């Protein structure tokens, strides 16, 4: 018997968080400014210092909706995102957490839940990547983004993939909606 396609209105919102990690303070010694003397011209000088902290940003995220999903086929959503890091290596880690119990990657309809999986690829345009475990930072990844919102240079720099397996889809009653939230934390390295 052919499964009747059921509608899954899944609203998965990925929240972006940029984390700034302070670098060591630049020591400021005694004033080394030089003053001018009285003359036909007078010249003085000052020393200037500043520190730019490690920073990262994630943008380009979109909600994910699986609608009228055929439970015989796994549901997959892949999207290109912009991840930017200003460290000298452009490296970052990604930490994902869901809205389920214990930050699990689950969608819910009341007490009923259905799990989903999250994959990340440090290259854009990908349909698969390394699986993320909730609350666990990935290994160091390198961004190709040259502008914090990818407004110049590459238009995206990573791929986010969300899946619901066919076996899990088959547990969802027809015409029901399950929702959840996925939070993504990018940490510059």
């Amino acid at each position: 018997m052919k499964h009747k396609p059921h509608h899954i209105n899944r609203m998965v919102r990925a929240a972006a968080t940029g984390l700034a990690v302070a670098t060591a303070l630049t020591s400021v010694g005694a004033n080394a400014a030089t003053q001018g003397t009285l003359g036909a011209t007078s010249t003085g000088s000052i020393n200037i210092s500043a520190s730019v902290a490690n920073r990262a940003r994630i943008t380009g995220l979109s909600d994910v909706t699986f609608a009228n999903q055929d439970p015989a086929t796994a549901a997959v959503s892949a999207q290109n995102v912009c991840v930017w890091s200003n460290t000298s290596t452009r490296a970052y880690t990604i930490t994902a957490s869901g809205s389920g119990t214990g930050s699990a990657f689950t969608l819910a309809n009341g007490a009923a839940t259905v799990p989903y999986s999250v994959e990340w690829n440090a290259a854009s345009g990908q349909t698969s990547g390394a699986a993320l475990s909730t609350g666990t930072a990935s290994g160091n990844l390198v961004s190709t983004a040259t502008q914090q919102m990818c407004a110049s240079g590459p238009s995206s720099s990573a791929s986010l993939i969300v899946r619901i397996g066919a076996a899990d889809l088959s547990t969802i009653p027809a015409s029901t909606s399950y929702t959840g939230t996925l939070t993504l934390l990018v940490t510059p390295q």
Partner: protein
Amino acid sequence: MGYGIAPKVPLLYPALIVAAGLCTPAYGQSNKVRITQLSDVAFGFVAGPADQQISQNLCIFANTSNDTYSVVATGSGASSAFELVSASDRLPFDVQWSETSGQPGGTTLDAGVASPAFTSNATQQSCNSGPSTSATLTLVLRAAQVDQVTAGSYTGSLQIMIVPN
């Protein structure tokens, strides 16, 4: 017996000659300027979204006829650019000048280019009497620039030359 008559010898008396008109002493005085009360600038940690700026009051003294002077600022970047540098990147900054102390901004200066004329109200070369300061120097780090550079520590210097105008 005859007697001689001593020849008359004209007596010359020192004469004081007074020239017609006023007689005024004359002496040369060159224009002199001085810049003091400069201080190093430490921005600390900088990040967007807003620009970061630091202003300081200075003493600029000019004994020119109109108390006017120009400013020539040069940075430590390439070709005297106003730049801070780290191990791997460059962070430009803006330099602004006001002929009045206590100002948050002013005329933007170009590296190595003499400014328009400013007027000093300083009455003593180190501002030890009269106004305690007479100008404002402002440095600005633009958020758009900070957002683009690599994380790290940045340093540089700024040289300011005051020229009578």
